[in-house]
């Protein structure tokens, strides 16, 4: 009973907040609705028994990606008139993408309801006694190790690319060298001068 109630609660909130993500006028509100959708999707995954994926969804998407996203959107200077100005121009293109997505969803559901698909290589059967984490780890680090590493390398390249594109060496920055500061002794910094009266100091 509680499971059914929880499912409909999470599902309804996911759908509503998904709709509000694209309907709300203020971009910051959009991001917040998106975060709510992520969070409730994680709740749905807990109901499916995929608690590891659910926690990862919250840690990665809600805790890191969405925070950075919100960070950027918050700093935008929002001009609502300008936001809506390009609406008509982009409408045909948006409709096209929506149509493609709709076709894919219909196709996907059609195939699913047509019956089980005999894939050429089914994944290894999962031992029901293993916990989520062990099952995923066992598959990911044995059977799919090369794909996993390839994904890691792609992300690394993307990260290096982003740094190379945005990094600029600025001149005239006096950055702090803590090791040099700590090495500095009074003898290096202070000099006692017996200064004759009426003359400038030679430093």
């Amino acid at each position: 009973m509680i499971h059914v109630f929880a499912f409909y609660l999470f599902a309804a909130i996911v759908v509503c907040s998904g709709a509000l993500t694209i309907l709300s006028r203020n971009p910051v509100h959009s991001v917040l609705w998106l975060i709510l959708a992520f969070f409730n999707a994680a709740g749905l995954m807990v109901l499916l028994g995929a608690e590891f994926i659910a926690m990862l969804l919250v840690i990665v998407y809600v805790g890191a990606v969405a925070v950075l996203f919100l960070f950027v959107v918050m700093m935008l200077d929002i001009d609502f008139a300008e936001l809506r100005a390009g609406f008509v121009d982009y409408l045909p293109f948006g409709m096209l993408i929506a149509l493609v997505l709709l076709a894919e969803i219909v196709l996907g559901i059609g195939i699913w309801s047509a019956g089980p698909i005999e894939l050429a290589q089914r994944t290894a059967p999962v031992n029901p006694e293993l916990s989520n984490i062990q099952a995923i780890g066992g598959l990911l680090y044995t059977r799919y190790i090369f794909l996993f590493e390839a994904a890691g390398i792609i992300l690394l390249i993307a990260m290096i690319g982003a740094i190379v594109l945005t990094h600029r060496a600025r001149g005239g920055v006096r950055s702090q060298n803590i090791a040099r500061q700590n090495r500095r002794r009074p003898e290096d910094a202070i000099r006692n001068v017996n200064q004759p009266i009426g003359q400038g100091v030679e430093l």
Partner: protein
Amino acid sequence: MTAFFQNLGMSYDGAWLLSTVIGILLIALPLMLAVAMIIYADRKIWAAMALRRGPNVVGPFGLLQSFADGAKVFLQETIIPSAANRTLFLIAPIITFTVALISWAVIPFQVGVVLADINVGLLYILAVSSLGVYGVVLAGWSSNSKYPFYSAIRASAQMISYEVSIGFTLISVVLWAGSFNLTEIVESQKGYYGLLNGHGFNPLLFPVAVIFFISALAETARTPFDLTEAESELVAGYQTEYSSMAFALYWLGEYANVILMCALNAILFWGGFLPPIDWAPLYYVPGILWLFAKIFFFFFVFSWVKATVPRYRYDQLMRLGWKILLPLSLFFVFLVSGFLMLTRYGGAQ
């Protein structure tokens, strides 16, 4: 407890719901009391280190000071700035407070005395603590005021930076314990050298414990990392525009988070509810008392740091997070996993 209510003739769902609600109250209400007393303790310790008396007027030794403050704040008017985003302005402190409370669901107080004994307990804590930043960020943005906004920007960058090194330190512990379940992590710390309980006594994990402690200070925005509310630059940071109960919710949430981080220190590295020495008579003391003693010890260290260490500059904070703690914690993940590979898991094949 579910079984007890089922015996009274309730259905399973009803009994489960009732026992969970009772469990939540049994954790949340003492926690609020603990927060009130720990604020008092914080002020007393801080005052003692500055050779002052601290709160000493309300009640014996000033013990009721926090309750007097709470009553005062409760009676004040909630002022909402006219330019603020009203809904988000009110939701933000509620988020902080809720998030600070829900992590306690997976904290084991004793063997079996835990509200939700889930096998991804540590990941749950990581997930929930990563939500904490939203309260601060939303407060900063919705106040529509410049100092809170600066504070929100600082907070989001700071918390994301230190969460990375917290994640790596947790991985080292999980590798050693072989589980994400907090009770199992505590149980795995039994009997180092047949004498001591706690991963902190392990020479490979002690540096990890230090890294975790520093990151915990940064994650809860305590001094020396309290740049989000640096009063010399940002008035009061993200809570500048808050008053009355909304302000009190930040206050409570902040200290609940501090106690949580102290509890995590105790549970992950110093044996949680186990006595520090693996000696049979010490097990007669209830585990919950050991846990509380350890939490209070770490809270004392938190206060000690607050009273003695000056605030970092923002670039130093980022440097410490990304250039020192992150590589160090990553290095220890390699070290710990390599050591376990060679010893526990049968060597390189």
